[in-house]
């Protein structure tokens, strides 16, 4: 295996310099973040580069971190190089007030529904998406249910006391 995480890291910092942040390796998978207006440039670079060749979008989803002011939503891309059998995780953070992120549909057809799903559940507004509408939830829904402010169980219930079961009253977690 010639393509190592260190090499990918080196190529990325050569190309994008300080923009690449939060570089870490967990469970053998390289993970890094970039500013959200660079997401397409980073993916295009990873796709086109003769040595990197990350040409398969495995997964696209989002995570909500309500406590990180200004970067509440993380859009997570998992890219895969089939030849070298290397995966990497790439994140862009966006604030919850302005959730615009460029769409990856021009690069990967598969991003189409995955972005719709991410929009459906987290409200990430993928700019340039050909058909950004809800996919799994009903069209009439007015909120984005996977955000942490929506607790799974009805918080107004008083007949259940979960205090002793490891899930006290704090919302969402």
């Amino acid at each position: 295996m010639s393509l190592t995480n260190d090499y990918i890291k080196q190529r990325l910092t050569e190309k994008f310099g300080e923009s690449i942040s939060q570089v870490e390796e967990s469970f053998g998978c390289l993970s890094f973040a970039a500013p959200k207006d660079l997401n397409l440039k980073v993916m295009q670079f990873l796709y086109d580069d003769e040595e990197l060749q990350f040409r398969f979008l495995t997964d696209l989803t989002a995570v909500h971190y309500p406590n990180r002011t200004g970067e509440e939503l993380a859009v997570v891309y998992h890219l895969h190089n089939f030849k070298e059998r290397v995966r990497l995780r790439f994140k862009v953070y966006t604030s919850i007030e302005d959730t615009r992120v460029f769409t990856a549909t021009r690069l990967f057809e598969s991003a189409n529904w995955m972005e719709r799903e991410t929009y459906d559940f987290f409200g990430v507004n993928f700019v340039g998406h050909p058909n950004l509408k809800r996919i799994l939830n009903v069209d009439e829904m007015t909120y984005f249910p996977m955000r942490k402010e929506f607790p799974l169980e009805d918080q107004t219930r008083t007949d259940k006391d979960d205090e002793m079961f490891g899930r006290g009253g704090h919302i969402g977690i």
Partner: protein
Amino acid sequence: MSEQQHIILPEGSIERQTQTLNLGPTHPATHGVFQNILEIDGERIVSSESTVGYIHRAFEKIAERRPYYQITPLTDRLNYCSSPINNMGWHMTVEKLLGIQTPKRVDYLRVIIMELARITDHLICNGVVGVDSGAFSGFLYLMKYRELAYEIYEEICGSRLTTNIGRVGGFERNFTPAAFEKIERFLKEYPVALKEFETLMNRNRIFMERTQGVGPISAERAMNYGFTGPNLRAAGVDYDVRVSQPYSSYEDFDFSIPVGTTGDCYDRFLVRNGEMWESLSIIRQAMDKLKDLPSDVYHADVPAYYLPEKSAVYTKMEALIYHFKIIMGEADILPGELYNPVEGGNGELGFYLISDGGRSPYRLHFRRPCFIYYQAYAELIKGAMLSDAVICMSSLNLIAGELDA
């Protein structure tokens, strides 16, 4: 009379208009709850749009409130034709997070169950392709053996369809001699039926005419559309998670990956058949390997995460404490972030897990192969006949549970 005669239709004539046909959400040909709005000109499909989400059950949200061991039953209901693979995939994800090393015997037992699940998944799919092209008998030949496979699950975990099989760290109990007997019986009888099925279908002129060149996709497009599993391999890409990133000791086994060339329904059919043969060979190898291993090991020695046996809970203090801790979700879970893929029946089934150290995941995302490749359906059937669209759908092996999560 060599020149073809065309009827000239006036502008706005009703024959010139296309019509809309709703294939689904509940239609005998869709084999699941999802809708395709087809714009058809006669019998030819001009354009189509797929609507999914009819059985969305918010598993990812539910998982955020459940302790890890309670998430296994949720994974059952993704691809319910091969739920053991989903269960094992989830166990392995958690084991990776917690750094649990499973003994070889557990790995091999898992391989047996996962390959059995792959066979049941593929035999349904291929049988149904036959049914949709008008050949019902092949389906019946194979279906008998799914019953046998389900009896094996039943022997091991007590349930058949939504199995909830195994635990984090291994299996809930050891395989009984009856289970091994049934596996041996399956290994003896299934190849005969599969051979018969192949003789019936593979070179059947009618079946070939109905499936060859139907719903083809090039390797490049398939990769761009995020295809994985048999559907990608039918297009000629030899990507298989079992080989590219071996898990559960798949590296100890000797098997090949069948690939196709055109990515059409016929190639997908052949690839699935080929995979069933490979799975049978893997189960055989695993059964032989098991003979050299101690027969009483069926879980890793991790008392803090593996539910103790019930009899021990009633008689031993320690077992009771661990039982209580695990059930109440007090077992220590490390914070971490990982993506763990397994080769499911339909392709790469991935678990993207973020743990913040709490009793339930901070975020859990299922990469569902069906959901991702179904978006190519509109492209695959454009310009095809209505009856081809039905075969194409069943040969993609769309499982509504996996589409909607």
